């Protein structure tokens, strides 16, 4: 059986379901619903104001409060929004109605829709999607369904793309604690497209390829932002008997399959745990205030809270012995999963009885009193939470909910990819239910005209055409593939166009040479595009040789300065024509008639960086005659 087929059968036996949501920021000059700048301010720029807000879960269009919205509200947090002079306006701050949608962004979205072979909707309807984690000052994100029912082919699989959206970027989180979350509004409202696949990606490896291919198609359009955070992949997956989980924030495409394999493992472990708990007829008790037991405790994490007028809350878990400490993912136990829920209420964490009680410094009498209070024996388990008066009881309720769910199986969750050494994830919030959409009545629908569709078809980025074009100017097939996948593709095309330099050579330098230099410790990321462009110009007009490019790049990595100054200082100017003839004559004399090979050796050993090999050759060949 071929390896791929084996792989597919293995995952299909697990009941593996997987779909992707790709979010990509567009490179428009203005935001989607206001004329704010889309360029992120420099690190030195100070916000001009902070605005503080509180949000509330409200009944949506269908009268029901969204589950995840309500969950966030329980945290009752203050949201602080940093306001930047050119990047934040009253629209961003929910102080002014939205302006008309940015036409450029709509055009880009339609052209991507065509690239994914989708049907563009006839009238685009702006919607509000409830968002209550505070990342949007309006408590909703404006979003529009742009196209439906497309498909792309990846690694021999037909991958359906049921929908594409054009929406607003959310704010970036700057800091967060139990009471306050601080958001930067600079990127808020930048146009973003979301491309969703259906849940039938056959395995984690193909999931990675799908993400890669969609990312590439978007990038070759030249209409998207680049850099950290400009593209994000959310991965949805489930296995048989498990539950749908959305993993957010996988930054590096190469890691998608690793995160997926770990999520499969986590769900399998949780299913195993459920069976163990069922067999043990496990139960979870109610939360009890046990502060009095710890009035004079030596346990630092409890006494610290009690000093601040906090409380200690505990509940019993019968039949959980050994289960709380069971690892469900590398370095994550069931106890960790429960703790992540408790932390949502703003507590530091929890203590569970599968941990080493000596580590915390429990006295024997404290343990005895606690067990007595909860009515459990030493064979049962407990969870203990210390925290603020209003936080600890809520945290205990979250923890109880999660502990009880261990008897049901895998909860539907949104999880954050937060650990790139183990590729594990962390609970963020319950998976939102569907009732969180309502029409954005402040913005008009966009009627899609035939002209708009025709333009989209014409401007749609096309991977095959791109490959054909690149193959026509670059012979090396591997290099063509590398170019297509490279974030530097557009720069490559621009360089070839503007300098007239040999495309193969330019591709070699941009794709391979820079990587080589990086490996030898040159800080290539310091080199500005303009510098590289100037170096190729100098090469193409004969000012320098091919070999000198390396030296130029090394110098540019150290300091950004005019290329011509580096050439003068480092004596990189090409010796050609009469100058080179003079060098050849001298070398011929010096070689004492040993022939042109010796003369070539002499010239190159002294002037390797400034002499063009083929010019030297033709002079030497002339001498022979």
């Amino acid at each position, binding site marked *: 059986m071929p390896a791929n087929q084996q792989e597919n059968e293995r995952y299909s036996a697990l009941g593996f379901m997987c779909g992707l949501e790709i979010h990509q920021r567009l490179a428009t000059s203005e935001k989607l619903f206001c004329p704010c700048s889309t360029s992120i301010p420099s690190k030195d720029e100070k916000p001009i104001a*902070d*605005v503080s807000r509180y949000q*509330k879960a409200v009944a949506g269009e269908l009268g029901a409060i969204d589950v995840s919205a309500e969950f966030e509200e329980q945290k009752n947090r203050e949201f602080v929004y940093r306001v930047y002079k050119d990047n934040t306006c009253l629209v961003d701050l929910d102080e002014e109605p939205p302006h008309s949608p940015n036409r450029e962004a709509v055009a880009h979205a339609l052209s991507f829709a065509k690239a994914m072979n989708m049907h563009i909707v006839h009238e685009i*309807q702006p919607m509000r999607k409830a968002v209550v984690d505070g990342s949007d000052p309006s408590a*909703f994100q404006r979003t*529009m369904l742009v196209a439906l029912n497309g498909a792309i082919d990846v690694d021999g699989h037909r991958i359906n793309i049921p929908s594409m959206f054009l929406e607003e970027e959310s704010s970036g989180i700057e800091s967060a604690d139990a009471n306050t979350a601080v958001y930067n509004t600079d990127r808020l409202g930048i146009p973003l497209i979301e491309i969703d696949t259906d849940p039938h990606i056959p395995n984690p490896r193909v999931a990675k390829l799908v993400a890669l291919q969609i990312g590439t198609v978007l990038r070759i359009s030249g209409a998207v932002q680049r850099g950290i955070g400009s593209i994000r992949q959310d991965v949805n997956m489930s296995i048989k008997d498990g539950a749908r989980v959305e993993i957010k924030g996988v930054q590096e495409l190469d890691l998608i399959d690793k995160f997926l394999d770990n999520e499969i493992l986590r769900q399998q472990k949780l299913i195993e745990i459920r069976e163990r708990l069922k067999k043990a007829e496990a139960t979870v008790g109610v939360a009890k205030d046990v502060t009095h037991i710890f009035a004079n405790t030596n346990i630092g994490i409890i006494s610290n809270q009690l000093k601040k007028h906090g409380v200690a809350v505990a509940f019993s878990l019968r039949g959980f012995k050994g289960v709380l400490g069971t690892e469900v993912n590398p370095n994550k136990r069931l106890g960790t999963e429960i703790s992540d829920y408790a932390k949502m209420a703003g507590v530091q964490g929890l203590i569970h009885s599968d941990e080493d009680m000596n580590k915390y410094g429990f006295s024997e009498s404290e343990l005895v009193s606690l067990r007595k209070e909860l009515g459990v024996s030493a064979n049962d388990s407990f969870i203990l939470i210390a925290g603020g008066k209003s936080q600890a009881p809520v945290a205990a309720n979250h923890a109880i909910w999660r502990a009880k769910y261990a008897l049901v199986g895998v909860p539907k969750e949104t999880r954050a990819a937060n650990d790139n050494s183990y590729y594990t994830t962390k609970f963020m919030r319950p998976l939102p239910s569907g009732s969180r*959409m309502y029409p954005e*009545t402040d913005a008009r629908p966009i009627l899609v005209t035939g002209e708009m569709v025709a333009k989209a078809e014409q401007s749609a980025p096309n991977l095959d055409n791109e490959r054909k074009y690149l193959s026509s100017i670059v012979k090396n097939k591997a290099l063509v593939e590398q170019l297509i996948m490279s974030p530097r593709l557009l720069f490559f095309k621009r360089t070839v166009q503007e300098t007239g330099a040999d495309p193969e050579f330019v591709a070699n330098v941009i794709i391979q040479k820079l990587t080589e230099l990086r490996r030898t410790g040159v800080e290539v990321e310091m080199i500005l595009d303009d510098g590289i462009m100037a170096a190729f110009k100098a090469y193409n007009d004969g000012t320098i040789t091919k070999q000198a490019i390396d030296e130029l790049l090394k110098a540019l990595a150290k300091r950004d300065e005019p290329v011509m100054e580096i050439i003068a200082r480092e004596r990189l100017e090409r010796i050609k024509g009469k100058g080179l003839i003079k060098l050849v004559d001298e070398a011929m004399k010096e070689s004492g008639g040993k022939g042109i090979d010796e003369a070539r050796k002499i010239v190159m050993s002294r002037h390797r960086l400034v002499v063009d090999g083929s010019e030297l050759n033709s002079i030497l060949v002339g001498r022979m005659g």
Partner: protein
Amino acid sequence: MYSKEILDFFKKKGISIGDRVSISSRDMALEGEIMPKTEAGDRATIVIKLDSGYNTGIKFSEDMDIEKLASGKAEVSFPKAKVTQKKGLPKVTLIYTGGTIGSKVDYKSGGVYTLTKPEELLYEVPELSNIANIEIVPLFSIFSEDMSYLEWQKIAEKVAESLNSGSNGVVVTIGTDTMHYAASALSFMLPNLNAPVAVTGAQRSSDRGSSDAFMNLTCAVAAAARSDIAEVFVCMHASSSDDRCALIRGTRARKMHTSRRDAFKSINDTPIAFVDRAHKITYNNNYKRAGASDKKTDAKTSFEERVALVKIHPNSNPEIMEFYSSKGYKGIILEGTGLGHVAATTQHRQFNWLQHIRNATDKGIVVGMTSQCINGRVHSSVYSTARELSDAGVIYCDDMLPETAYVKLCWLLGNHRREEAARLLNRDLVGEMKKRSGYEEFEEDEYAGESAGK
């Protein structure tokens, strides 16, 4: 609204708005609920709500396929709040008149509609019942731009009635567009008020989690329940942040921004007090205190509707005075330039107001002068123009807001003879004007109170 063709097509196919259908045209097949069409969209496109929650438009054609899968759900009603009456809390009457504070996005029409059931408001702000014993009086449900003195009269009567039947204070929810006119009118119509009357509203509708309605409402109820301010005041956000509300004297409040939540500013006066998120009241200015009294609250609601508010501007045509005069108007408030001026010395006769104003005062029309600068007071003796206007009988209204002067003159002419009304126009009755201009009353720093990088 959908085009007639679409509505006929639906009728023919036995389909109503709200039904779940499968629908397909040449290049698209959808399944979902038929949404009503807002005035904003293309009338020849059918809007479908998909299961994902997204709405999307599909172009109508006579030959498209449509099949009804299920009938639409009945109109969704909001769960009603159980208003539990806690013992020992002060009683507050909440008079509800409509506006954004009671607005919802209507999923049927896609537009903003006004709540008709006040319980829906309590459902969304259940904490209200922890502050006071709330009695809800739905008076009407209209946009504030549609509100006239006929509604102000009803509100004033209802306020007096509530206070006379034992409420500690009253909250009036109202649309923000004309809130300051209404607050002014209530200030004059309730001359012997002995309890707090908070007028509040919202700049963002309460269907969104970021609405200012929640804090405005809780702060207003707290002020009505616990403060001893025996005045009508506007209670709205003090800044763009959800940190505190300002209680602004009803005759001094003005909407100074079309959309910000801190749109209402106290003009030529500082706010009476601030109420923070924890409902702590910090007093900030002099105010009339509620005292022990058995006297009933009077509602003196007579109102003269033939009063105009006229804005002066370069090239403005003074013949407007003759128009109002011919229509039997009793009073005109001018919103003059600068210290209170109109063109009076110009050589261009068609722009000279002086004679026209003289004609009006000669006919017995009360003419008052305010300033379109909004901030600051008018002055009748700095420039000769003003001296001449004053001589022509124009009454200079000190530091009174143009809108307040307008409402005041309507009320005065409704309740007094002409001479008495003219005499009282520039006498302080309920805090609408004062002699001294405090330095701190004109806020220069637009970011005051919002320190960056905290």
